[in-house]
């Protein structure tokens, strides 16, 4: 349960987090660049190894290894590299390879659309119902505060489908298809939004299922299948990490009125109560793109993500001092919690008091 903070405490809370942020800004340097470059290097070697094994091998063992390596490369590229670089976390290096504005990632979502809806909408209006379209992505009911409709009954199956096709979900999210269905967005507008997505998607499909298989000649089916599985591995992984960061029980939703003119401290509070962390080892954190530290990521989306693990205990200590909850748990526990939310909210809510208010 969270203590309600009077305005002066909210400000003090905000100042403490500002100070943490400043501390990292002051130390930012070689270490962060070395980290991201070593991840890039690992990713490139894994990618090369994966492709080599898939393209020249003929046996099941090299197939499994190659697919695994390629899947790993895609995970690193999307999560620790793509997501973080596109947040502008490394813009200060002035290295064009780490430039947030020009980066494009190896997945179906068009980079500039993602930068708009994710960096701006989601990170500014985090968990404000009606403003943050990431709350259930417009078709899932992840909290009892969202109105129920009969279509939600099948959402447990929809979610499984989404997990396997996650990159397409992220890409299509920019279309606001639900708004067109509800009559709030014209078809012409939908088409404008669909074009970059379709173009990027087509290029990705061409690359994974025509270009690389084509290079492999007789091995084409093997390569196509390997790419398909590698994409799938990445999809399921990204899905799991992101759902655990946003939709376990205890994550709070907000209404627009309560966030109007909110001071910086309150904005920080909303980020904390609107996210959840996953505990794990260093490798786990890197593979999740440090989104296992969703709370720290939401507080400081533009600080180098490799700093989140060292910030986390300090953020948590501050929260404790101010009587604020800090949602964290093992991967399995958070996944179970998310599953329960999805299942429970598939049915209309029983009359129960809203949690966490």
């Amino acid at each position, binding site marked *: 349960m969270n203590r309600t903070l009077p305005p002066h405490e909210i400000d003090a809370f905000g100042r403490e987090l*500002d100070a943490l942020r400043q501390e990292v800004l002051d130390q930012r340097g070689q270490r962060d660049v070395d980290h991201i470059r070593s991840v890039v290097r690992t990713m490139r070697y894994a990618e090369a190894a994966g492709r080599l094994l898939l393209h020249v091998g003929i046996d099941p063992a090299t197939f499994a290894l190659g697919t695994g390596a390629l899947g790993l490369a895609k995970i690193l590229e999307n999560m620790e590299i793509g997501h973080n670089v596109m*947040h502008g976390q490394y813009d200060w290096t002035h290295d064009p*390879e780490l430039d947030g504005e020009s980066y494009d990632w190896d997945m179906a979502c068009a980079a500039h659309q993602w930068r708009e809806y994710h960096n701006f909408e989601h990170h*500014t209006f985090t968990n404000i119902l009606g403003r943050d379209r990431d709350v259930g992505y417009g078709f899932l009911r992840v909290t009892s505060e969202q109105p129920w409709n009969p279509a939600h009954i099948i959402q447990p199956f929809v979610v499984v489908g989404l997990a396997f096709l996650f990159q397409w979900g992220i890409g299509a999210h920019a279309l606001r298809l639900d708004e067109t269905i509800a009559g709030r967005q014209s078809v012409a507008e939908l088409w404008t939004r669909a074009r970059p997505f379709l173009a990027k998607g087509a290029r990705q499909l061409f690359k994974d299922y025509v270009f690389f298989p084509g290079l492999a000649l007789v091995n084409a089916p093997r390569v196509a299948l390997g790419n398909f599985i590698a994409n799938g591995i990445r999809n399921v992984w990204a899905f799991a990490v992101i759902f655990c960061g946003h939709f376990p029980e205890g994550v709070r939703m907000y209404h627009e009125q309560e966030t109007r003119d909110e001071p910086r401290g309150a904005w920080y509070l909303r980020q904390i109560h609107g996210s959840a962390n996953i505990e794990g080892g260093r490798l786990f954190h890197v593979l999740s793109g440090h989104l296992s530290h969703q709370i720290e990521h939401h507080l400081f989306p533009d600080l180098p993500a490799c700093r989140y693990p060292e910030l986390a205990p300090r953020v948590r200590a501050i929260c404790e001092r101010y009587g604020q909850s800090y949602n964290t748990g093992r991967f399995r526990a958070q996944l179970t919690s998310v599953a329960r939310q999805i299942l429970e909210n598939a049915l209309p809510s029983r009359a129960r008091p809203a949690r966490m208010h």
Partner: protein
Amino acid sequence: MSTLATNAPHVARTASFALRTTQRLSRALLLDRSFRFWVDELAPVASRAELRARVLSVVDVTHDVKTFVLAPRVWPGHLPGQWVPVEVEVGGIRLRRCYSISSPPNDPHVELTVKRIPGGRVSNWMHTHLHAGDFVRLGAPSGDFVLPETKPTKLLLLSGGSGATPLIAILRDLAHRRALEDVTYLHAARSRRDVLFASELARLSSLHPGLRVVLHLDDASPRLDATQLWVLVPDLAHRETFLCGPTGMMDAVAPAFLGFEGRLHHERFVAAKPAAAASGAGARIHLGRSKRTITTTGRGTLLDELEQAGERLEYGCRMGICNTCRCAKRSGVVENVLTGAISNEPDDDIRLCVSVARSDLTLAL
């Protein structure tokens, strides 16, 4: 006409078409990044994405000046007196400075003579960390501090401190072209041990009777100013003068050219001036792309100010989170109002929605 000759342009066109198609395809399939990675990994100097140069050697010139001899992969050529942007990575951050090229165009290598400036991030880094075998990134040589096409009959090359670097390039070029008739080379240095290229100057003046080398040492004679300059170069009025040095020295000698200012060509190579308007009001913002200049009112962030002035800019959160309002600051000082951080590096990226001007600025807008 032979078949070969008729086919040549056709072949060239096909080749360039194939190259362009490959480039577009690799970009579309996101293979370009991977390609650049492997070039960096295996043969960094071969990069085509940017011009890189291998450091061949580092030579001590004086106690605080070193010459870096560079071998760029390709070199577009330069005129003596021009400078080149150099980019190095200091603490993970790429920093860019412009240095005059001290080698003449006929030299197979490119030489940069760099003084270690107290507190200067790039010059100190170069002095301590840049060794033979490393590489640096270069921009395109540029600058109009160059001799006219036909050499003026009477010439004065006037320098103070490390301002000698473009002038030595001019001198070396004239020596190479055997065009050193009636040239005065006047160099002001703090003391004897600060004189740049001393032995080379001695050698050149003994080889070329038309060259007069004058050294002015601050610790041995009165400060170099207009009067002193007339004493040292009595026929100043008849000479085309090329002047480069620290601001103080350039200002001190400037009055000597009263009445024939047209004969004076100068190059300022000092760093950007420090913060001017502390209140943020009245700073002038030059928009590099649209060539507009706006004067700030001091009442808001750069985003507000520019919008008030009628600029239509992209933005998202307006609170420093989403990075939509990012813009490259070419020069000047801004303060981040959230963090109080000061940015005074050229080419820093700033977020307009949380920045205020602390001096005149040039933005890439």
